[in-house]
Each structure stands twice: as structure tokens, then as C-alpha cells.
């Protein structure tokens, strides 16, 4: 709902930065949020809205950041691709593919050195597996025994380029990484129960064993790579796939399941929607009314 509102209001030209929407990819981080604690440290990518919100990131500050306002979570310096909420353990995001992965092993190292019980979580897309930073970091995490959950969201496209042009057909990173000595989990993203169990097990593995783990889930980005609209007219994605994924939309299916299981649940869902709408309207109002940064603020915050 948050991103649908971003999408709706983008043409107002008040959000003057690229936006990479997570619509279609929200369910996995939502499930992970059922297990994570505030103290767990999380790092993510350019497509970070769902990760930020699921880690408890402040919605008002996120929208204000996209509006480029002083009250934004990064005070306007970051924009949609650079969200942060330190209090909630969301430590930032990188807009360079694969670049945030090494930071997550650093957070894992700090956690290990301090002897704390929390873990480091690293979200990335399947495109990041093509970067050297990925293989370097999983290697280091295994050798140094770091508590890092490598969370790969495979949406099959790197911008407009499909996975079969970029990676060997039928390559299994789960196999590759388990051969290296890392615990792995994989969910095809078509069944809620399966995804729930895999995410729960992966999180618990890192938490209890204090070792790295690789979790891959398949998903589908419903809107364009960057921007608020659909881009299916470009013809780079298979129409059949689009239909297929629309049918297995886990959020809609979950909603149907909840509605079916108990009559009174329809009221509950309605209430949740109303509550969300209120929060979203409030966040956009906050962002719109918030103070702008001064042009001279561009020359602050270079060094501490």
C-alpha cells in the first residue's frame, strides 16, 4: 500500500529521485520480520523499501527522505536508494550491485567480536551473485565463521536483462555454496508455508549455530525496474510469467486463506487496511509539510 501510494503520487514531481519499488517482493522480508529482533543488524540494496519497513524502519522518515526533506531518515542526502534507521538496526543500503554484501560480513565480525547474540542480515538480488564481492564475502564468512544471513531475492532480472543471459542455465547457488561449506535454504516462492519454514529455519540456523547461511527465494517484481509504472510494453518479460506470478501472488492468496478460515476475519483485514491507509496518509502529509534542507547543507557532513 505504501508503494502503491508512491506510485500514484510520483507524477506530482515531489519525489525527485529514482524509486525501485518492491511491489511483488514484499512477502519474504515480511516473514523474516516475524523472527528478527531490533538488535539484529540489516543491510540492503537500491530496492530497499520493503526491507526497511519490515525491519521496523520509520515510515514518516522514509517518505520524507524520498521527498528530499530535512526530516528524512538520511536528512535528504540519501533518497529512496539510501534508507537507514539505526535505532531499528537497519544500517543502510548501497546503490551499487553487490557493494553492500561485504558490509554485512563486517557487521557479522563486529557481532562476533562483541560476543552478542544477534545476527547480521544481508539482502541482495540474484544479480549481485555475478559480482566478485559476493563470492569473496561468502568465502570470508565461512572461513571466519560469521553469523550472517545472506538473503538472496531472485527476481530473474537485472534491470531488463534476464538471468539466462547472465548466469549458467540451471546453476544452483545452493549447491555451489553448500559445497563450499555453507548451510543453504531455497524456496521457490510459490507456497506460503514453504517460504515461511525456509525463512524461519535459515534465521534460526544463523542465530543458534553462529554460522553463515544462504537463503534464496524466487520472486517477481510486479512493476518496472526503476520508477512507479509498469514496463511490460517494453516486451523484455514473458507475458506468461507475468500471469503465472500474478496467480501465485502470496499476499493475495494469504488474504483469501484468512478470509476463508473465519468469517469475522474480513473485518480484521478491513481494519488493517484502514489503519495502514491512515499511517500512509500521515506519512505523506508529514513529508510534504516538512522543512526543506538549505542549499548550503550540501557542504556539511563530509567528515565527523
Amino acid at each position, binding site marked *: 500500500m505504501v508503494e502503491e501510494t508512491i506510485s500514484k503520487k510520483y507524477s506530482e514531481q515531489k519525489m525527485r529521485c529514482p524509486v525501485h519499488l518492491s511491489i511483488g517482493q514484499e512477502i519474504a522480508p515480511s516473514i523474516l520480520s516475524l523472527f528478527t529482533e531490533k538488535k539484529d*543488524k540489516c*543491510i540492503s540494496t537500491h530496492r530497499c523499501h520493503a526491507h526497511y519497513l519490515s525491519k521496523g524502519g520509520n515510515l514518516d522518515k522514509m517518505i520524507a527522505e524520498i521527498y528530499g526533506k530535512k526530516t*528524512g531518515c*538520511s*536528512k*535528504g*542526502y*540519501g533518497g529512496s536508494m*539510501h534508507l*537507514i534507521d*539505526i535505532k531499528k538496526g537497519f*544500517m*543502510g543500503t*548501497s546503490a*551499487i550491485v553487490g*557493494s553492500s*554484501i*561485504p*558490509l*554485512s*560480513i*563486517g*557487521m*557479522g*565480525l*563486529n*557481532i*562476533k*567480536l562483541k560476543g552478542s547474540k544477534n545476527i*547480521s542480515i544481508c539482502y541482495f538480488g540474484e544479480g549481485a551473485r555475478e559480482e*566478485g*564481492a559476493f563470492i*569473496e*564475502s561468502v*568465502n*570470508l564468512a565461512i*572461513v*571466519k565463521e560469521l553469523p550472517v544471513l545472506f538473503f538472496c531475492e531472485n527476481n530473474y532480472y537485472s534491470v531488463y536483462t534476464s538471468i539466462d543471459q547472465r548466469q549458467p542455465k540451471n546453476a544452483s547457488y545452493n549447491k555451489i555454496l553448500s559445497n563450499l561449506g555453507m548451510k543453504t535454504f531455497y524456496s521457490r516462492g510459490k507456497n506460503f508455508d514453504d517460504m515461511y519454514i525456509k525463512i524461519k529455519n535459515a534465521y534460526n540456523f544463523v542465530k543458534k549455530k553462529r554460522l553463515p547461511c544462504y537463503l534464496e527465494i524466487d520472486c517477481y517484481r510486479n512493476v518496472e525496474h526503476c520508477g512507479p509504472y509498469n514496463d511490460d510494453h517494453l516486451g523484455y518479460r514473458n507475458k506468461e510469467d507475468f500471469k503465472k506470478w500474478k496467480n501465485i501472488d502470496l499476499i493475495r492468496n494469504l488474504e483469501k486463506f484468512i478470509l476463508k478460515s473465519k468469517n469475522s476475519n474480513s473485518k480484521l483485514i478491513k481494519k488493517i487496511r484502514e489503519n495502514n491507509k491512515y499511517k500512509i496518509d500521515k506519512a505523506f502529509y508529514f513529508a510534504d509539510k516538512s522543512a526543506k534542507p538549505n542549499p548550503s547543507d550540501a557542504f*556539511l*557532513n*563530509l*567528515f*565527523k
Partner: protein
Amino acid sequence: MKNNFANFINKTISLSMSMNKNVICFGLGVTDPKGVFGTTLNLQKKFGSARVFDAPASENSLTGMSIGASMLGTIPILNHQRLDFALLSLDQIINNAAKWHYLYGGQINIPITIRMITGRGWGQGPTHSQNLQALFTHIPGLKVVMPSLIDDLPTLLLSSIFDKNPVIFIENRWLHFSETKKKFKPSIRNLPYHRKISSGKNITIICYSYMTIEVLKASKILKKEFRVDVEIIDLVCLSPIKEKILIDSIKKTKNLLLVDTSYITGSFSSNLLAKLSKLDFEHKPQILAMPDFPEPTSSFMTKYFYNNYISVINKTLDTLKIKKRYKVNQNNHIHDKPVDYYMGPF
């Protein structure tokens, strides 16, 4: 007892680790029998394998690991045996280390120190001798320092380790051999700082890293044989720059020579000269730098490749429009070793 530059690095890292338990030290070769030219020897024995450890040849991810750990309070010292290897980590240095504080509106800082060593002579060749400091000084958000004199080294390194920002610490390998009888007594200073290491009235020479040693040697001969009185400013910190000390000196001497350790095109010194060109000069200021060629490997080809005190003297005379030249027979001069007892291999 005499101490050398490499011992002082070792002692300074050791001191920082006893001062603050969050300091960690790692990199390829840190715990091997040679311990990065002796600079990291015995540290693991003293501080344990959790805080001092060897690492895979993954420069990029090791840098990212330092950044991620530092975000949560760790103070990492990352070691590279050659600057040229650290080029594999430019993404992490430029896109993350230099940006994180700014990107998030000052909420997070990255207190890491990255040691990079540059070779000189003894067949170091095109990819083991590059002085690419200009690459790093080009990036806002990085502090770039290059030690030169051993008396200042411990303070510079300790100040870098405890600086709250990313510091690129570039050491010339030849400096590792410089010695002192002075006691090891570092303090912590705010970075950046620059040092006037000799006062003079005819010309200001701005130099840094190993070339400061050659400039000092040159200044003695310039005074004795040519009556040229040189004021030397050892930059120590290349980025950011505090211009005042430089401007004050140039206003006094009215003449300027910049001595660089790298290729002239796009060099640090050409940029600094552009900044200082607003001042009035008696004679046109000049830069003494390396030619726009990689360093060849063969010692036959490096014979006259590097600048030394002789080229500093002659460039100074040229800048001041003095026609005389300093000539010594360099045929028997051993040009590719830092000290007589050096026997290689790297």
C-alpha cells in the same frame, strides 16, 4: 638503541590496540613469518587471533568488512603489502567508506585506517611501485596521509587509527629503513596537519613521502654550495589540505617548487599548484614529478628514472632562474636500494 620506521609502525599499532580493545588489525600476510615487512610481527601473539588475523586475497570484501565492522564500533586497521593490490577495493573505498557518513546525513561514521605500501627500485616494476595518492585525494570524504619523517610517524599513525573517518595511509617502502635514536612517544593530533620542517627565505618546497628525505638532503647542499635558503613544508596530510601554512610560507619566500612522487599528469601537486596559483610569485612555480610512464623493472632502465636530491637541487635552481647546475658522477651511485645492507627480494 636505534629504532627503525617499520618497528615504529609495529609499536604504534600495538599501542593503539592496548589503548582501545575495539582496534583490530588484519590483511593478507599480517600473521605470516615476515609480518608485512616486520610492521605486524608478534601482534597476534600479544592480542590474540580474534583481533589480529591473516586474510584471504579478497581486497574488496576485506575493505567492506572493515567498513561494516566500523559502523558498529570496531576500529579496523586493514593492511595491504602494496597499494597496487588495494586497487581491487576501489568500489568499497570510494562508494562506501568515503560516502557512508555523508549519505546518511552524518549519523554514521567509518573510522577505518587502510595501510598501503608503495615500492621503489629493486625491480618493483609497473604494478608494485605506483604512487596513486591523487586517485584518493580526488575523492571527498577520504583523509589521505603519507608519512615521511620517522620522528612524526608514530603520531601520524596513531592519529589516523583513532580518526573518526576513513584514512588512506600510504607508506613508501624505502621509508621502512629510516632510523632514529629518539624515544617512541606518539601523541594524537587532529588530521589534517602539515609540518614546516625547515625555515628559509628564498623558496618554499612542498613535498611529501619519501621525497621529503631527498628534499632535506638537497636543501643542505643548496644552502652550502648555492646560498639558496629553502623553506620545506612536509605535507604529511594530502587531503584535506589546510592552506594557511602553505600560503604564509609562499607569501614570505615568493617562490615555490612542489616535489611529487608520482606521474605528473593529474598529479596531486599539479592540483595543489592550481589552488595556490592565486598567489603572487617572483618566478613561475614548478613541479618536480615522475614522467608519464610506468616504472620499468630492469635496474638498467631505472638508473635515471627516479628523482633524487640531485634533481631536486637542479629543479630548485631552475625555478629560481639560477644558471648554475649541481653535478655529481652518478655512475657508481646505487640507485635502486634504500640502504646498503638491503639484499632484496621485495
